[in-house]
């Protein structure tokens, strides 16, 4: 009898400990040699429970109007969180969007989000695809109501934020927490930089060409400056997408799009904001032979370059060293098992 009572007390204590447990803080590690992240973690400190909640939300189609499309539908972990082999993505009821889904990584360093920088903060990014009629087609406050009605989520919000209140702010911050953990910094390029590996002769040649021709805009180690540029793409006659100008209303921003990172570029085909190029070879051919003249063309591209066919092959060999398989197959990034 006494044993039973003790067991019961122990169970109660354990239960109390489990339910009153504070979220476990997670340290955000900056890869060696990288700049300080722009995300302000003081307003949204990473915790194991917050990240786990964000991950569950990321993979949950409850966020969409038809409960079929989740964030991961267009941002698949195995392909660096992009919609591989889709020029533009499709959302609810197979509606087709107008832009190529960006690969998600190293978002803590992001200055703005979306191809045109329309979103100014990672926390607010998810509102765009959730609300867009061609993507998830939902009303954000309705998403929150749906989450509140579930059996599971109030408890997950309690674990992450201390009580069961499910608010827009908490939902967005949890999603940010998961997305902030998507750090790709372990490619062959990174191992070479750390002195643990060496480039092949061809990769080294490609790297030298990269530094001479690409590094101004695709600046290492993030392989983007986070700025916008017109990289000489002909205006697409279907979407007639003018990019950044739609956000700022400033004519000099016409045809400017976000400079994407080149990390994991092997997996993120097809390329450009509208996915018009199927391969890296097509991309490089564009930069050598296909630039469309325009008043807003990036100054860096105004002088035609002389990359030979062999140069382009070497450059591609280097770009493939930016693939980070550990990132793509990290079990912490995939569909949460529960």
């Amino acid at each position, binding site marked *: 009898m006494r044993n039973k009572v003790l067991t019961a007390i122990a169970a109660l204590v354990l239960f109390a400990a489990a339910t009153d447990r504070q979220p476990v803080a997670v340290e955000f590690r900056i890869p060696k040699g990288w700049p300080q992240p722009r995300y302000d973690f003081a307003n949204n400190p990473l915790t194991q429970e917050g990240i786990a909640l964000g991950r569950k939300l990321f993979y949950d189609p409850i966020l969409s109007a038809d409960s079929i499309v989740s964030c991961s539908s267009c941002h698949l972990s195995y392909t660096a969180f992009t919609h591989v082999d889709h020029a533009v993505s499709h959302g609810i009821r197979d509606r087709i969007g107008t832009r190529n889904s960006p690969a998600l990584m190293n978002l803590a360093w992001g200055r703005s989000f979306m191809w045109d920088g329309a979103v100014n903060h990672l926390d607010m990014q998810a*509102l765009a695809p959730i609300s867009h009629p061609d993507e998830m087609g939902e009303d954000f406050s309705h998403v929150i109501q749906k989450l509140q009605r579930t059996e599971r989520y109030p408890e997950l919000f309690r674990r992450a934020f201390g009580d069961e209140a499910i608010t827009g702010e908490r939902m967005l911050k949890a999603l940010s927490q998961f997305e902030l953990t998507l750090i790709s910094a372990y490619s062959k390029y990174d191992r070479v930089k750390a002195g643990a590996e060496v480039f092949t002769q061809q990769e080294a040649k490609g790297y030298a060409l990269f530094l001479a021709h690409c590094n101004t805009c695709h600046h290492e180690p993030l392989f983007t400056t986070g700025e916008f540029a017109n990289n000489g793409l002909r205006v697409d006659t279907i979407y007639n997408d003018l990019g950044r100008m739609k956000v700022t209303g400033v004519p000099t921003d016409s045809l400017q799009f976000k400079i994407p990172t080149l990390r994991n570029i092997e997996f993120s085909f097809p390329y450009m904001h509208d996915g018009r190029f199927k391969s890296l070879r097509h991309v490089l051919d564009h930069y050598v032979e296909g630039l469309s003249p325009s008043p807003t063309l990036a100054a860096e591209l105004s002088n035609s370059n002389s990359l030979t066919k062999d140069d382009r092959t070497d450059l591609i060999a280097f770009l493939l060293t930016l693939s980070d398989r550990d990132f793509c197959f990290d079990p912490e990034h995939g569909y949460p098992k529960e």
Partner: protein
Amino acid sequence: MVRSVAIFFCLLSGLQGLPQDRGRALRFVPFVNAGPLQLDEPLFLPDGTPATITQLRFYVSQIRFFDQGHIAFFDSSCYLVDAGEPKSLLIQADLPRSTHADSISFLLGIDSLNNVSGAFGGDLDPTKGMYWTWNSGYINWKLEGTSTKCTTVKNEFQFHLGGYLPPYFNAQQVGLKVKDEGVFTVEVDVSKFFAQALLGGRCSVMSPGKDAVELAKLAASVFSIPSRGEE
């Protein structure tokens, strides 16, 4: 530090309903055609056109009370005032009744900092429908309804005014002389807004820009202190 304090206060902005006898307060009274605004009720615009107002919501932030040019009170919170939510029309100021004030000011809208600092709760929670999803930024002023003046679908007019990027910064300062009373009643006469907003068939402005700034100035001009006797 200043930033985190501002953010902290904005987080508190959802906590309304302080005891009413605490002291000073701002009370917004939406008017149309010299009568109280009734949402969804038929009315006439200043030029006689039939219309209905279905929604009037706006942000009020950076509330200041002045006494002979000196700031007697400052509240950095952000409040969502909703003509359809009577509770939201009264903003309590946590200061003693004895505090003297001869003028007040507030920002009609949300400042730049709060527009670029991520997700907030309370009145600033994006679930309130006052945040643009496709182009980051708060909607400072939202006025919706129908009028036969509008040739849009269902004769709807929609004014969603916002934008924090120069040159189209949208939030407007409003300054008003007040009589020193316990509750400062501020009338919001939307007739004044309609007198100009719908000119030339302009029935929807829903993105930052020149039109939105022009209309925000117009919106800022509809606030006044009643000259007639107190309630």
